[in-house]
């Protein structure tokens, strides 16, 4: 399993898409924080207040969508590039392939998330002083939000990899997720906010303490996302037992 994980990391490192998605994640986060600070200060919000910090930092998870895409590519990309044959010849036990991809996508999510959190902090710190505020580096709230954003990125990476293994078609998996997160969840929100709280986009907002929504506690949100990931992964493993490569 250790060799398999090392090989999956090597695949990730030797793919340009990985680096493009990392750049996209960081730029998106930086721009989102700039935007949030402009909006917050225009509305005369005290940036040092709890609500101010939540308003500015909750956007740190904006890049999570790119981690989800990376996760899908890690798994389904093997079918798109037709490298799955070589992968399964090396590792005929498919559950091992699926599991190692999930683990690699999750840890890539941690790295992407941590770099995004660092970027968010640096940008916020800079703009706070430019506007005459002091960024509360000692605030537990700020760290809770940033930690939540790293967790969200890790879990979105896992969801992406699990879905990619199940669906195999990269475009369908990515389009499906986009449609779900940005359209279907909004429609469900219209019908029932209580139900929508339990769905992935809302769970991601819970993890970063979005101040504008009625959300689940961070811990509950993380557990529910983990359950989604595990269910999709197990479905992929069971489906794979009956599928040809």
């Amino acid at each position: 399993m250790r060799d398999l994980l090392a090989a999956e990391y090597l695949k990730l490192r030797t793919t340009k898409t990985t680096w493009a998605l990392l750049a996209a994640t960081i730029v998106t986060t930086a721009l989102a924080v700039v935007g949030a600070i402009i909006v917050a200060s225009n509305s005369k919000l005290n940036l040092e207040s709890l609500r101010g910090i939540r308003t500015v930092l909750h956007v740190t998870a904006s890049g999570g969508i790119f981690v989800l895409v990376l996760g899908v590519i890690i798994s389904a990309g093997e079918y798109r590039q037709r490298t799955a044959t070589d992968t399964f010849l090396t590792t005929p036990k498919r559950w091992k392939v699926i599991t190692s991809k999930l683990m690699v996508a999750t840890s890539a999510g941690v790295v992407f998330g941590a770099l995004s959190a660092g970027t968010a902090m640096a940008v916020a710190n800079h703009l706070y002083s430019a506007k005459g505020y002091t960024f509360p580096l000692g605030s537990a709230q700020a760290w809770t939000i940033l930690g939540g954003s790293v967790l969200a990125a890790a879990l979105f990476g896992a969801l992406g990899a699990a879905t990619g293994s199940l669906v195999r078609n990269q475009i369908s998996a990515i389009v499906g997720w986009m449609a779900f997160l940005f359209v279907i969840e909004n429609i469900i929100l219209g019908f029932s906010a209580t139900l929508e709280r339990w769905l992935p986009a809302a769970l991601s907002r819970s993890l970063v303490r979005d101040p504008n929504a009625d959300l689940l506690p961070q811990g509950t949100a993380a557990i529910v996302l983990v359950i989604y990931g595990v269910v999709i992964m197990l479905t992929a493993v069971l489906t794979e037992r009956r599928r040809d490569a």
Partner: protein
Amino acid sequence: MIEVKSVTKVFGSTKAVDGVTFTAPVGAVTGFLGPNGAGKTTTLRMLLGLSRPDEGQALIDGHKYDELDSPRRSVGAVLDSMGYHPGRSGIDHLRIVAKAAGIQRQRVGEVLEIVELTSAADRPVGGYSQGMRQRLALATALLGDPPVLVLDEPSNGLDPAGMAWLRDLIRGWAKQGRTVLFSSHILNEVEMVADHLVIINRGKVVRETEMSELAGADGKIAAGRLEELFFELTSPNAQVRS
């Protein structure tokens, strides 16, 4: 040794492979011959654990592929369905397979030398010719220095010099005591390298024989003899003999 025992694979209402049984002996080249769509690739994919037989089993040295301890060290395979990430270099592709299979990194350089691809190893595979991709596939198959080689249409994309080079390689492997099973629909090629012959048509084995049995009284295989036999066995109104 490769043993395929009564293997059947059904796709929808079509029996792509129908009770196929044959053996590829150790230290010999077995040619697996048949028209397009006869079931050659499907049979090889079942042998390699990529597809599950509906009936029967295909064994490599007595084991199913997915039960082999170290598949890459036991079997080397070249299949038409193999692709490469276009942006990744040939050497990185080999390093990834070597890493996953627990094969020493230095072996990557050795197999690149064997397939004469060293000078192009650092270039992205997206810019490789069909022949270079085929050499990379052979290099991948050789990484684990396996005693068994399974090659599906290995000469695809090779130029005449490449085909001659591949023939020498295949003969050399058999001389070293390896088991080589290769599929082809190019009769000439099979005639030149195979010791053992399996002909498949419409999912069924229609003949399994030693090449030497096709020889005439002078010990040589007459020109056109294999072609004659092939058409006799695979023409649409051929009788299936078992």
